[in-house]
């Protein structure tokens, strides 16, 4: 039972999503990614203030089976971290598109234009 891919999000080939509002975006991983990982047990996130380049690792996500890097969809600064997620990492599995990990303030908002839309992303994972 796959979760729907919100049309308003942008997506990366590394299976993150970003939900943009102005020059800020909430970032999480896609339903496809959580299915591949299986039961998530740890999420390691950066500190507020961390500066990220597009495609740079901002943390790790670990399931019973495997460890995966989390990659930033855009260049910018981490302005918020979803700290409570540490204690309930399983919500990444149960509600992947509502479970944001960090909020990034974009240095260069035009970068988002290069990301995939929901249709393109779903073609990618077919």
């Amino acid at each position, binding site marked *: 039972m796959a979760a729907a891919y919100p049309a308003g999000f942008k997506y990366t080939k590394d299976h993150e999503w970003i939900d943009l509002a102005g020059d800020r975006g909430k970032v999480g991983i896609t339903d496809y990614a959580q299915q591949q990982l299986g039961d998530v047990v740890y999420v390691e996130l950066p500190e507020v203030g961390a500066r990220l380049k597009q495609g740079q690792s901002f943390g790790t996500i*670990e399931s019973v089976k495997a460890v995966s890097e989390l990659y930033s969809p855009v260049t910018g600064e981490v302005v918020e971290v979803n700290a409570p997620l540490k204690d309930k990492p399983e919500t990444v599995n149960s509600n992947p598109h509502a479970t944001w990990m960090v909020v990034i303030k974009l240095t260069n908002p035009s970068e988002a234009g290069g990301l995939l839309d929901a249709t393109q992303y779903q073609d990618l994972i077919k």
Partner: protein
Amino acid sequence: MEQATEAPLKKTPLNARHRASGARMVPFAGWDMPVEYAGGGVVAEHMAVRTAVGLFDVSHMGEIEIAGKDALAAVQRISSNDASKLQVGQAQYSGLLTPDGTFVDDLLVYRLAPSHFLLVVNAGNIEKDYAWMAEQIKPAGDAVAVNASSRYALIAVQGPYAQTILQTLTGVDLSSIKYYWFAHGEVASVRATISRTGYTGEDGFEVFVPPQSADRVWLALLEAGKGSGIVPCGLGARDTLRLEAGMRLHGNDIDETTTAVEADLNWIVGWKKDDFIGAPRLREQKANGTARKIVGFEMLDRGIGRHGYDAYVGNDKAGIVTSGTQTPFLKKAIGMAYLPVAQTAPGTEFDVDIRGKRTRARVVPMPFYKRQK
């Protein structure tokens, strides 16, 4: 996240069934195998085996038969455990060792008849093991090894309700089969060998059936177990279950660089039997000790020590993690590691390098989980 593969993957007789039921398939040891099932997942499947019952397709495992007048001598030569202790109808866990006492593979040895043995080996090692056995049994006399892997499908029913469910499909009195014994009969009207063994730390059975009947037996078991909460389980849960039960995995915890003594498997060595491959080295290690030994550990800090991660004592790289996971039942991060013997007492603390971060761990006795009888 995808894994590249070259040779076409081998398929068990249940491959189409797994795909039809929405299993997530992955390449494993050259086989296309279910890692977890739709609607399940590692944690749910693991818990089903601990609290109810789970069904596993382990047909990828290899079966090699050794028969002939001198079959016992042949098995005694290549297998570390003492096969002369086996009665017909009995099985034992053992090692297939190199002259250095290290593991070509680990295996189960079944005594089918006084001079007829069935050796069940790991999927990724079938050809290697068969070649090794065929060569190494030659000095034993009149015995032949036959790779019979394609003649068997193997289905494991594991968990507290395993006996109740399997009993509804067979006339064999399962309560009379003791742990590590087996019997021949029928399951769902299919010719079967029923063995009270498993790789989960739970009570249960492994059922050998002809490949063409595997699907029928699989469906019959799922149907029979409906009311008991039976679920199909993939390789993911198989790995977390065996690790919780402290069982070694060849290729992770034991291999051609680790001896049976280092792996703390002295109990699968027939110390009193005549010479066998690897015996001199093992006897020397038993007498004089080894530099390192396997331990069970649990993480004290947040994180999972996984296969290949380095272990540190103080600032010194002192050992290596061979298995690690977050266990669904005990809800802890546990694992196995090789450490210097001085660091192997339960309670000893050490560090695991988890992606550049020193993370505290503590030696604990194995198994991590032992079922209540």
